[in-house]
């Protein structure tokens, strides 16, 4: 309720502030006072934007053991959403304040599983991001707020980021939910930045199968004339230390080469292990105490053709990912759990517990070798953006095709369509959740 009041207050505040800003310039001519000077300073430092998004989504659930008869994930067949996204920001002297309240109205319809034939309306009022930042000295900044901290050059995913799994690249119209961070940023020079980052609360992120643990990170950035590099040392409470890094090089005016990765001693990822239970196995963090180095590394490059399009290729090696034998055991366990899903307790409960572990085994990708190709052509005739991306799992031969089409209509509106088509059987990574998803919508910006 409080969020709704705050959201409405923000919306009301927008036009009021705009009118006050315009009136302010008239009043100034009449009387020069200190308060008008302050008002001018405030109005100059105030920025806002308002976006309305409405879109419809159609998706077909995959026939897979992870989601038997769509009873586990209960994914709707159709949905429509309306989202209002005002972004407000005030820069006043050394203080920087921003807030991004959101209102989401959603309608869903199910055609599969226990909710077959169901429809549902839902509204959600929340603040996805907010930030209060104080400039202590010219080169020292301290902040606290709900943020979506993203970095790194790669499209496929960002292994160097210890906080967020989703880098927001697969669907740019869906905002990544923010988490709560305290940050201290020090700029010893133009080329160097040292940041201390504490992730203190899960914020809007949902940890469906596990509890949130605080993460602390030290980040060191260097930006040179034609290259940049960053190292991130992080520690997760009740877990381990990780070292992440990324870097990029502008090799020519058209060619970018980059890499990103992370390493740690052992891993908290879950693996199928023989167990004395009706399924004969369970998901266990077998390498939790292992001191050997485990890591994920991604190498990529992009080239912009003279006629406009940019071609990108990325390869990722994910050493904690499953080998063929582990994958076989994983899918066998998942199938056993799926077969018992509709049984009563205790088998039904064990099935749900097992499927929640197989759904999120704490791996960004399930297997070890991936390659991604992307064709991107923006600003075609200054109105059309196209992105086509193919991701191939080299170990189980499943793949995912993503397209993003954006078309500007006039100065305010954009039509968009975003979709994905997954190839592979139900016992492959990309064939597990959806066969396809198709979204079409309109974004209107004031």
């Amino acid at each position: 309720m409080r969020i709704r009041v705050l959201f409405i207050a923000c919306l009301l505040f927008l036009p009021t502030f705009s009118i006050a800003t315009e009136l302010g310039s008239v009043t100034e001519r009449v009387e020069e006072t200190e308060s008008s000077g302050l008002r001018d300073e405030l109005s100059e430092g105030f920025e806002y934007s308002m976006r309305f998004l409405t879109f419809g989504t159609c998706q077909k659930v995959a026939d897979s053991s992870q989601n038997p008869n769509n009873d586990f994930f209960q994914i709707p067949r159709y949905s429509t959403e309306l989202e209002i996204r005002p972004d407000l920001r005030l820069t006043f002297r050394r203080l920087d304040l921003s807030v991004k309240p959101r209102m989401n109205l959603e309608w869903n319809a199910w055609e599969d599983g226990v909710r077959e034939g169901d429809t549902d309306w839902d509204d959600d009022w929340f603040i996805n991001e907010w930030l209060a930042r104080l400039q202590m000295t010219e080169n020292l900044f301290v902040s606290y707020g709900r943020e979506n901290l993203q970095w790194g050059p790669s499209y496929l995913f960002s292994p160097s980021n210890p906080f967020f799994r989703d880098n927001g690249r697969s669907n740019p119209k869906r905002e990544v939910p923010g988490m709560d961070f305290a940050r201290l940023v020090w700029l010893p020079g133009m080329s160097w930045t040292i940041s201390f980052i504490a992730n203190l609360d899960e914020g809007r992120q949902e940890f469906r199968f596990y509890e949130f643990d605080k993460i602390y990170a030290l980040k060191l950035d260097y930006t040179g004339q034609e290259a940049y590099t960053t190292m991130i040392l992080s520690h997760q409470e009740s877990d381990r230390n990780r070292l992440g890094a990324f870097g990029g090089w502008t090799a020519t005016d058209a060619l970018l080469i980059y890499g990103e990765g992370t390493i740690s001693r052992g891993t908290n990822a879950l693996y199928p292990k023989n167990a004395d239970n009706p399924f004969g196995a369970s998901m266990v963090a077998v390498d939790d105490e292992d001191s050997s180095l485990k890591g994920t590394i991604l190498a990529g490059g992009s080239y912009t053709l003279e006629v406009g399009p940019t071609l990108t290729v990325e390869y990722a090696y994910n050493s904690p990912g499953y080998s063929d034998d582990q994958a076989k055991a994983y899918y066998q366990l998942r199938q056993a759990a799926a077969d018992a899903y509709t049984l009563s307790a205790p088998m039904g409960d064990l099935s749900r517990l097992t499927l929640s572990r197989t759904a999120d085994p704490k791996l960004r990708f399930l297997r070890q070798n991936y390659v991604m190709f992307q064709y991107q052509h923006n600003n075609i005739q200054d109105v059309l953006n196209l992105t086509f991306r193919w991701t191939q799992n080299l170990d189980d031969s499943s793949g995912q095709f993503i397209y993003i089409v954006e078309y500007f209509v006039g100065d305010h509106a954009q039509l968009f369509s975003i979709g994905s088509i997954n190839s592979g059987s139900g016992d492959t990574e990309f064939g597990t959740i959806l066969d396809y998803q198709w979204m079409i919508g309109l974004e209107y910006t004031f």
Partner: protein
Amino acid sequence: MNFKFQVSSFKLMALLVMVVSGIAFHTKPLIADISPKKILSMADEARGNVEGIEWEIKIESIENGRKQFRTLKIKARDFNSLAEFLLPPKVKGRKLLMIDRNMWFIKPGLRKPVPISPRQKLMGGASNGDIASTNYAGDYEATSVSEDTVNEELCYLLDLIASNKKVTYDRIRYWISKERLVGVKSEFFTVSGKMLKSATFEYGNSILIQGKPKPFVSKMVITDAIVKSNVTTMNYSKVKLKKIPDSTFNLNLLVR
């Protein structure tokens, strides 16, 4: 007699020397006394390469009959610049950060900065590299310097070849006004010798550098080499020198 002749000859010689030296001192040399690099660096200065400056650009493009516009605010220092999209509303809030040759594009709602190449198109005939401060003095070598006129203005014509692979254009023919030492026209070529586009420049703005007023670019008109009706016009306004701190160009602080 001989003596008289010698005296007359001496006078004649002296007169000749005076006339020649007088001409020499009162007309500009055909080819500049200053080096091509110096000419280029002075021309660069009038296109953004100064210690802390801010301006707005209104870009209007006509491409295959379709008109579009963008308004951007640029904050620049040396070869670093931050371009913020102000208008139209559909692109408001987008940012383009250029730290020397590194470039990132930031979209509101998509928090992850995307590294991009200078070659990527910004709008119409303008590439990302076209709105950045120019560093022709550092990026190009003049293979020849000659003279030409542009709109009846006497110019140095410099044939520039890229000194590294990291620049947007492999070759530029650059006309620099002899009197004002600002670039007034350029032609951009690929490595195969194909002309991509041409541009003309106007300098209606003025900035103070070390207390002296210096011309600053006010208009750049880019014309496509193949489809001549595809024209992109960049109007520069609200130019002001100001201190631009390091934090302006910092990705950790920029994405909000």
